[in-house]
């Protein structure tokens, strides 16, 4: 009997038993069979839930606990390069060493604080710029005729599917001293010597806005597309001018899209690494890059872990807010 056959077999037995019992008229036996059926169904449900649950617990949640554990240990010339959190001494003493030094280090060294603040600042400004550029685009696509709309959507999605890394790389070629912009401007005679655009904060902003723009446009579009145009018509009919109608009708109704898009840009942008690494200056302080350097450069795993924990704590509020709004919009739809 294969494992697949067992539930079928059990079911057949239960069914036959139930028919028999019905004929005989035994009430309590039927009831216990029904209760068993219910237990089997609950068990089945539990098994289904447990598959992704177990994976996520093991490979998403537990790692965070380990990061915390290592953030509380000390760097060591060892393999792996950190001291253990606890160890048995003389066979009976459990020595637990919690090192808060890494976190203290973070707080004391202004480098880290500045990096966090700078990262948040950069992410925030980039999010706003993405919103300013992305909202009209999303609105325009949502208002377009169906045939054009599909094409426009495809045009937005195409960069999204193209490699992120490669698109950031493209900006190197455009922004560098003998890159596209400088060559063009010098050829036109507008400038004599190249403008330094690469390895600047400007380049980082540009890179982040560029890479995350589709993440802002798509949720906004999804929201605006569902917007009932007759609401606007009613507003106009009641004497509302287009600008006011936009502010008082469209904007509030598109708020879920704005929030979703903003979260999808802001939260990952805070911890962004690739863009500051490729487009930013060596002293552009972004926390993602600091973490990478601590880990790969200094081989200081405990400090890198502490940086990660601090970053996580910083982002926990926006993350929970994002999940809350997602859940609420999901409920509203159902």
């Amino acid at each position, binding site marked *: 009997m294969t494992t697949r056959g067992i539930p079928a077999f059990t079911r057949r037995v239960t069914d036959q038993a139930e028919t028999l019992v019905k004929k005989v008229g035994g009430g309590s036996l039927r009831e216990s069979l029904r209760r068993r059926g219910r237990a089997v169904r609950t068990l*089945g*449900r539990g098994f289904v*839930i447990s598959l*992704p*649950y177990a*994976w*996520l617990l093991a*490979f998403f*949640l*537990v*790692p965070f606990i*380990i*990061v915390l554990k*290592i953030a509380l240990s000390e760097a060591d010339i060892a393999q792996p390069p950190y001291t253990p959190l606890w160890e048995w001494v003389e066979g009976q003493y459990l020595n637990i060493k919690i090192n808060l030094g890494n976190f203290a280090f973070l707080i004391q060294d202004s480098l880290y604080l500045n990096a966090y603040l700078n990262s948040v600042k950069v992410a925030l400004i980039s999010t706003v710029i993405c919103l300013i*550029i*992305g909202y*009209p*685009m999303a609105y*325009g696509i949502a208002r377009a005729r169906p045939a054009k709309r*599909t094409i426009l959507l*495809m045009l937005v*999605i*195409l960069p999204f*599917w*193209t*490699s*992120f*890394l*490669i*698109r950031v*790389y493209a900006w*190197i*070629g*455009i922004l*560098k001293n*003998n*890159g596209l912009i400088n060559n063009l401007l010098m050829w036109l005679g507008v400038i004599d010597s190249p403008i330094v655009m690469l390895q600047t904060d400007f380049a980082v902003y540009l890179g982040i806005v*560029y890479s995350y723009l589709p993440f802002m446009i798509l949720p906004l579009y999804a929201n605006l597309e569902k917007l009932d145009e007759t609401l606007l018509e009613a507003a106009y009919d009641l004497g509302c001018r*287009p600008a006011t109608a936009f502010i008082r009708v469209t904007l509030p109704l598109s708020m879920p899209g704005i929030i979703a898009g903003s979260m*999808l840009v802001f939260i*990952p942008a805070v*911890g*962004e690494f*690739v863009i500051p*690494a*490729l487009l930013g200056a060596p002293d552009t302080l972004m926390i*993602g890059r600091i*973490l990478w350097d601590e*880990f790969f450069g200094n081989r200081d*795993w405990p400090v*890198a872990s502490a940086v*990660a924990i601090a*970053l996580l704590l910083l982002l926990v509020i926006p*993350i*929970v807010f*994002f*999940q809350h709004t997602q859940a609420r919009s*999901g409920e509203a*739809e*159902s």
Partner: protein
Amino acid sequence: MKRRSLFLFSAMVFGFAFLYIPIVSLIVYSFNKSKLVTVWAGFSTQWYGALLENDQILQAAWISLRIATLNATVAVALGTIAGFVLARFRRFRGRTLFTGMVTAPLVMPEVITGLSLLLLFVAMEAAIGWPSGRGFTTITIAHITFSMAYVAVIVQSRLSDMDESIEEAALDLGARPLKIFFLITLPIIAPALVAGWLLAFTLSLDDLVIASFVSGPGSSTLPMVIFSKVRLGVSPEINALATILVGLVAIGTVIAGIVMARKQKTRERDMQLAAADK
């Protein structure tokens, strides 16, 4: 009204230009004879040839493709279950935690996920001996973990849109829940699964940060190779690679668009047919 559409129109033109100028520049410069990439020296396809002879890039591409395929397939399986659970199982113990774990990877900065998974693998190796050394397996596990979140969100959204009474009707007609999932639900949400697979594939192929953390010697992925090259400056072979990738994505998108448009046409024709005869 006219003024509004002019504003919108120019905003869209600017926006799309902004999106596409870098991509177009990549393509144009891939045909530049000069090694300096951005200083035009004449038309040439030599870099494509050089690309095909670059073993390092080709090997990395092969590894990335294999990881991406495996990742997409497993992520679709797990993600569909997760999405189904979120959409259909209203209440169960630990649902809040589950929802949190499924949606968090969508926004979590990659450096955090990368670091945490690496530390996990190191600890696991110390404790139980597996995974022994990092490479293909660890990268795939890491990718599955975040890909699954995307698939789950797509599937959950599709299932919420679906008329639940179809599944109820099947229950009413005598089919059990497991059978219904495979006979009824899955065929209906199939397009969402395809979209999820493609998304997981692309995300995996494109991932740099997480792969950097959890890979090992001899298992450099394509993004890792690209990154190490471009860190030092522009490289014409990368332009050639980029053009090929963009070309593939463009072809794929166009085909998808045509297929969907055609399906829409047949559907509309069918509905007109139905309305015609009573």
